[in-house]
């Protein structure tokens, strides 16, 4: 296909009289809703539910799909997003009817297979993280953060004082401060030292009775392992405080080192990052929380239990923080994650982390002659460059947009905030070397273009389905629904 077809909106394709799905004939008498509901009957039919044939619908969404970039096309090097390959067998098993059509409130006697699967996943996550207990209820990473912070809060409250302050480094994801805030904590930012790690002396000086916990991403968003993590845990614990680990970057660590062994109290795990479940264009994910035994009584209820060889939901959990999701977690995401873990096995997971770090360091070494590092120091699964030295007044954004023309999804840009014009690159272990080489060649070509014809780079993308979109106008005059 030379040029993608310009696909209209669904509402512009409305063709009254067409049907796109068959409603089965009814075998019971039809009821007149007016006699039942009176003036609570819907008056006007929804104008914006289009009438289309199945063919129209399939073509519409197939055309839309061609405007997207995806992991199955190529390198998707978004730092801290872990855009690894999404295995096809995972998709297949998650669609088995015995999982997909299971009602969340069925009696446990009718869901033993699902419960065994969840218990197996919980045990695997505890083994990988070095933790004692686990809940699969949170639906995403930020949801897991919220759950984990609530556990800390409930525990501290039970000790007599919930305390007031959550310490969060300036390199953290925005979800960390937001999750702490919605748990009723004041957020206090701690500055990274010149090596990109937590400044121990400053941390020690801050140890007062108001500190509830610290939230640390390890390795952090610069890809740097927090080398003093064990000492940090001891400092916090000596102060009666807790340690939360954001597991967003767990992909660097599987089988190599475990947060539970460092002394961390609680962490969340992004199954849609480390454990290969697809990102789906913005979810669904899953954000299980693993914790040490002292936090276990506070886990969201119900908790999976086993009695006389049968699994069941234990609802009698008086200290529980309560439910965080309506039902049992994003179960079909959990199915995929366990399928991945069992595919990889203990050695495969370790190998995945090793190769993720190898790939990131390979890209780092190949890109170093072209771009300037944000922090100079050993990095693990991702590397952050800055915009210093980009020629011709070209910015990080320009470079990112020009990469689109070369057929790549850009890296994470302008994050972490502590690096000027950050370009954060995480190739993951599933990238072949030649794909990374192709990316490096594209960056080299763009840097050269920036020297010779910066205006062209600044106007990129040129070959995408759309050129640069006016985000300022979108926010100034929001049009959030279709108006004919």
């Amino acid at each position, binding site marked *: 296909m030379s040029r993608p077809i310009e696909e209209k909106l669904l509402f512009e394709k409305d063709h009254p009289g067409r049907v796109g799905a068959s409603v089965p004939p009814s075998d019971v008498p039809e009821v007149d809703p007016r006699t039942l509901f009176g003036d609570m009957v819907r008056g006007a039919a929804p104008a914006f539910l289009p009438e289309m044939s199945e063919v129209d619908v399939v073509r519409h969404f197939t055309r*839309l799909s061609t405007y997207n970039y*995806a992991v199955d096309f190529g390198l998707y090097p978004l730092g801290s997003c872990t855009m690894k390959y999404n295995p096809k067998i995972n998709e297949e098993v998650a669609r088995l009817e015995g999982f997909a059509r299971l009602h*969340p*409130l069925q009696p446990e006697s009718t869901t033993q297979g699902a419960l065994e699967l969840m218990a197996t996943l919980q045990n695997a996550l505890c083994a990988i993280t070095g933790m004692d207990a686990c809940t699969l209820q949170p639906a995403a990473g930020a949801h897991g953060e919220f759950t984990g912070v609530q556990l800390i809060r409930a525990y501290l409250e039970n000790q007599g004082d919930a305390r007031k302050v959550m310490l969060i480094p300036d390199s953290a994801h925005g979800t960390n401060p937001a999750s702490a805030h919605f748990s009723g904590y004041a957020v206090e930012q701690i500055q990274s030292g010149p090596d990109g790690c937590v400044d121990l002396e400053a941390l020690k000086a801050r140890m007062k009775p108001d500190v509830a916990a610290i939230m640390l991403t390890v390795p952090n968003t610069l890809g740097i392992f927090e080398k003093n993590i064990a000492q940090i845990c001891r400092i916090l614990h000596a102060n009666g405080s807790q340690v939360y680990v954001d597991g967003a970057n767990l992909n660097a660590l599987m089988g190599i080192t*475990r947060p539970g062994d460092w002394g961390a109290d609680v962490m969340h795990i992004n199954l849609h990052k480390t454990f290969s479940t697809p990102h789906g*264009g913005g979810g669904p994910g899953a954000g299980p929380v693993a914790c040490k035994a002292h936090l276990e009584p506070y886990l969201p209820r119900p908790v999976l239990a086993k009695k006389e060889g049968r699994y069941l939901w234990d609802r009698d959990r008086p200290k529980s923080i309560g439910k965080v999701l309506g039902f049992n977690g994003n179960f079909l995401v959990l199915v995929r994650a366990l399928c991945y873990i069992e595919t990889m096995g203990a050695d495969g997971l370790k190998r995945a982390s090793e190769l993720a770090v190898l790939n990131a360091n390979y890209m780092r070494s190949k890109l170093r002659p072209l771009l300037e590092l944000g922090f100079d120091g050993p990095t693990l699964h991702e590397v952050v460059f800055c915009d210093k030295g980009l020629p011709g007044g070209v910015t990080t954004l320009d470079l990112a947009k020009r990469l689109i023309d070369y057929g790549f999804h850009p890296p994470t840009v302008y994050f972490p905030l502590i690096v000027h014009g950050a370009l954060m690159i995480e190739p993951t272990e599933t990238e072949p070397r030649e794909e990374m080489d192709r990316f490096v060649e594209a960056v080299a070509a763009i840097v050269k273009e920036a020297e010779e014809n910066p205006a062209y780079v600044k106007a990129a993308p040129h070959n995408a389905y759309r050129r640069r979109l006016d985000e300022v106008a979108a926010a100034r005059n929001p*049009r959030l629904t279709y108006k004919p």
Partner: protein
Amino acid sequence: MRYLPASEEDIRQMLGAIGAERVSDLFASIPEDLRLKGPLDLPEAVAEPVLRERFVTRSIRNSSPTCRPCFLGAGAYDHYAPAPIDQLLMRAEFYTAYTPYQPEMAQGTLQAIFEFQTMMADLTGMDVSNASLYDGASSVAEAALMAHRIHRGSTVLVARSVHPAYREVLRTYTKHLGFTIAEVPYGADGRLDLAALKGALNPDVCLVLAGQPNFFGVVEDLKAVAGALEGDKKPLLGAVVAEALSLALIEPPGACGADMVCGEARSFGLPLGYGGPYLGFISTRQAHMRQLPGRIVGETVDADNRRGFVLTLTTREQHIRREKATSNICSNEGLCMLAATIYLASMGRKGLRDLALQNLSKAEYLKAALRAKGIQPLFGAPTFNEFAVRVPSAEKATDAAYKADLLGGYDLGREYPELEGGYLLCATERVSKLACDRLAALLGGLS
């Protein structure tokens, strides 16, 4: 390992480029005493054919509505999803893409979100909708946080007839934020008790939440609820829609005076999936759009003045505002939103109404069949595709149904001690008249 492309030769060459000898050298920044000494305590890798069998075995150790007509609803309804939905979701361009942060190469996802927002706003009778939340329960909690930002009051009045799990999640989310969560009782007919609501109002009430239909399947007189709210500091009215299919038949909350509509749209083309992933949503009036949580897509133009779509109003979000964001949500339920968009386009306005009508008719048939066997409804108010009855024992009812190869209803006594013997039954298009008759005969025969 088939997901790991690096050959020994690749590894050697990459290490050469890095200037390292061994892969383990790359982990030198991790202190030696923190390294795991042995292997992870996990089983060995399993080959794909063997693993597939293992998952099939796990799946058939469950008994799903595939072989047992399902009368269990309570927030999760067994509807059919047309085949194109899953086929289209399987397009890698959708399911292996990230959040559309680079709009020039994510117009497919962005346009679909814009279409979803439009359809959800239309269905709920509101001006705007967001791009999804985790599920119905968390959408109620987000609605409360949102109402507090708009109104400033800290008391939420939630109908006791709102889904019990939704109310629990609401309490979890607001526990440490200085909220007061108070329940409004239901009346003898199963509808929200208006007199009790009026009595509970005070200037600190920022939000009144009513189910539509409520947890008992009862259709609320939402206009009367809206009419009961008055004064300068009158609270917002939020409708909680746990069964989105009802929107095709029941007057949309926006036309009844609601200020926000939140709930669960899983019925639109998504599997029951033992509880997730589901599809929370929230829609509201234009005036409140800047207080919405989560992702929102807006229309704009590109440098050539062609129509395009972008994530917008992002200054509400955590990656910009950090602790001052309207929510901590980041990953949401993108692919579920896409499923719903495809579903709604497939059904169309007529198909969705026909389906809703059939659900209503099935439930009314079941209700009548039960009545004929001496099983009476618990409440007198009209219901949609779900209703409560009184049985001698909910536990016995469920056991008896299971023995007859049916998935029975929900034991109301579990969360409502005052409704001991109350049994919630739902009938969707997927249960036959025959199955309804069998259930009625069976429950009528219980003692």
